[in-house]
């Protein structure tokens, strides 16, 4: 049996008076697409933030490819060294940078040589089909285009793991359905490991190999899912 890419062990996290995460354990295999499903406030976003290193667990451990990245009360590896791509719920596109500059910032931070960046950026933009929008600023993009730009930014550094925090939630139903299918297709074609947080069962059903349900900071069930062929 292969070692899981992501291992979360008995993690707890309190945010103020609220027990956001209460003893969650989760293994994610390499190449797997896991959807974390649950209502608002159940702790699923906090779980992603803990994995990314944006929060520190009160107790428990987090491992990424056999390297412990977080322990009780401590972050052992900073977010930018974990090799994770993150798509935020509101996308968090930097308003003062064009789409190309957003991707360039990621590669520059990874110390990719300047002459090697352009092909990688073009590849990522082509992957999400927004090559023609490279010089646009976020406010010059439609909702769907912003979504693709955020995805390109998360993928351009070839991360080991991509975390997606309800990235489709702000889109209208038609666009949401289209992008959901595209996202699933993309995930299968590049085979990147993903953890997708959502409160929408349709999203989970289309995007995930496995669906984990959360309630009040706890994992209450998980099941294998057979996503429809896209």
């Amino acid at each position, binding site marked *: 049996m292969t070692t899981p890419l992501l291992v979360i062990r008995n993690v707890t996290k309190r945010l103020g008076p609220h027990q956001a995460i209460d003893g969650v354990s989760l293994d994610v295999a390499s190449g797997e697409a896991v959807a974390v499903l649950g209502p608002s406030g159940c702790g699923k976003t906090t779980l992603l933030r803990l994995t990314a290193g944006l929060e520190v667990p009160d107790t428990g451990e987090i491992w990424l490819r056999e390297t412990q990245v977080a322990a009780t009360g401590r972050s052992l590896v900073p977010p930018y060294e974990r090799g994770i791509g993150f798509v935020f719920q509101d996308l968090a*596109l930097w308003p003062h940078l064009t789409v190309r500059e957003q991707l360039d910032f990621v590669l520059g931070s990874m110390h990719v040589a300047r002459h090697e960046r352009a092909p990688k950026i073009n590849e990522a933009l082509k992957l999400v089909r927004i090559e023609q929008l490279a010089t646009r600023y976020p406010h010059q993009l439609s909702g769907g285009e912003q979504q693709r730009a955020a995805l390109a930014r998360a993928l351009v550094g070839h991360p080991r793991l991509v975390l997606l925090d309800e990235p489709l939630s702000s889109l209208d139903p038609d666009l949401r359905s289209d992008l959901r299918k595209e996202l699933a297709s993309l995930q299968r074609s590049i085979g990147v490991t993903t953890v997708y947080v959502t409160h929408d069962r349709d999203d989970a059903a289309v995007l995930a190999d496995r669906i984990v349900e959360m309630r009040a900071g706890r994992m209450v069930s998980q099941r294998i899912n057979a996503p429809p062929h896209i």
Partner: protein
Amino acid sequence: MLGVAIGIFIACCLLPVGYLLLELLRRPTDSLGAMLLDARRRGLLYNTAVLGAGTALVATAIGAPLGILLARVALSGKSVLRLALAAPALIPPYVMGLSWVYLTNSRGISPDWIYSLPAAIFVLSLVFSPLAMLATEVAMRRIDSRLEEAGLMVAPSGRVLRRITLPLTAPSILAGALLIFVLAVSEFGVPGLLRVRVYTTEVFTAFAALYDFGRALTLTVPLLVSCVCVAAVAAILVGDPMVTTRRSGSSRPAVFGSWRRGGLAFALVVIGIALGVPIVVLAGEAARAGSVRQVLAESGSAITNSLVLSATGATLVVSVALWLGYARARTLRSSGRIVDVVFVALFAVPSTVVGVGLIGLWNRPGIVGTVYGTDAMFLLAYLARFVPVAALILAASARNVPVSHEEVAAVSGAGWARTITRIVLPQMRLGIATAWVIVFVLAFGELGVSILVTPPGEATLPIRIYTMIANTPPSHVAMFALLQTIVVFTAVTVLGVVVASLRPSARAQGVPSVVEGREAR
């Protein structure tokens, strides 16, 4: 009411400046050019520009990192820390200068150091750095912290600060620096105290020592033009829509948490130098005075005058600014921006320039002249200087009252007066209290206009302190300076207690976020 307020605004704020401009236009252009460009004036221009730019640079270098610390690093007791860091802005600049003069004298440091342009920059930077701090903190709070978190996923915090945070907050930080430039260039007390020749002190000398109104008038030109232009640019920058990203409830203060220890140490050093040193030095100097009662008796009626005039002035200013601020809040965005620029530009008019304008306008025969030579000139000075800034504060407060609240009242049958008194003003009451205290503090420390328009035999506390410096024992002057600081801190503490007692509903009542000091988490 709005008509009356606009009338007072035009008469008190616009007319003095308008009068100056008209008088200048009536003067022969060749003499004007000669007076502006001779070697002596160029020296003045150099000193003034270096004072303004140096203060803006140093104050921003101190204040901006503190703003980042308060906005993005989790700290316990942050409200107290913010208050302590902001407190130096409440100390009248010449009082701050006085404390450093006493410190250097007592340590045997050469007077060449303190009576110099760099020392004036140092003192003014201590007083104005809280403005840079608050401008930075407010700008950072307007940015969704997820933009920085997205950066932290791929880059260390230093790179995120340089490439994400600072570009987004730069317009506001720059606007803060420009306002500090204007305030430093407009400052009269510190350059006067530290014997630095700049335009404000030269205007005062021309008028008060040489009785040369024409010369004073000409000297106001570069000051007036530069301050109004720089302030207008600052007002435009503050409104830059690029930095107004969505403000979400997820703003997390701990983005740069790893800088906690270093940031805290820096903050404590700043508090020690900008707040601890002046208070300790003044208290130590004042302790040498024999009898407190005797020293206070020397002040004559200055303390009572200052308290009464400042309280009356603050009440008048807020009464006028309330309607202007409300009208501004309900103005369309495009024309409202122009009004903002006018308010900021008028607040930036240097105090000595306002003083010259008021004298030219009111010192004349007839009914108008009966006002000149009375205490009413102080009140006119406060109206001229502080209505614009109070209107901006109250506009911010009024904007937080949803228009729908007034519409519901109107639909329910309430008239305009009833809607304003029962619906709008109660929701603005903390904003009104904040504006009143700020104007009271500014009026209580006002020196530049007051010293020009003060009637014979009358004086406020700042004027008394300023005139006592040359011929009174330092211990007596220090006691007055300390007293002035205590009155200012007491007024602000009372405001803090009022805000704290009403905190649960503070946001709904339109308290500016800086005063509110809450963390969105």
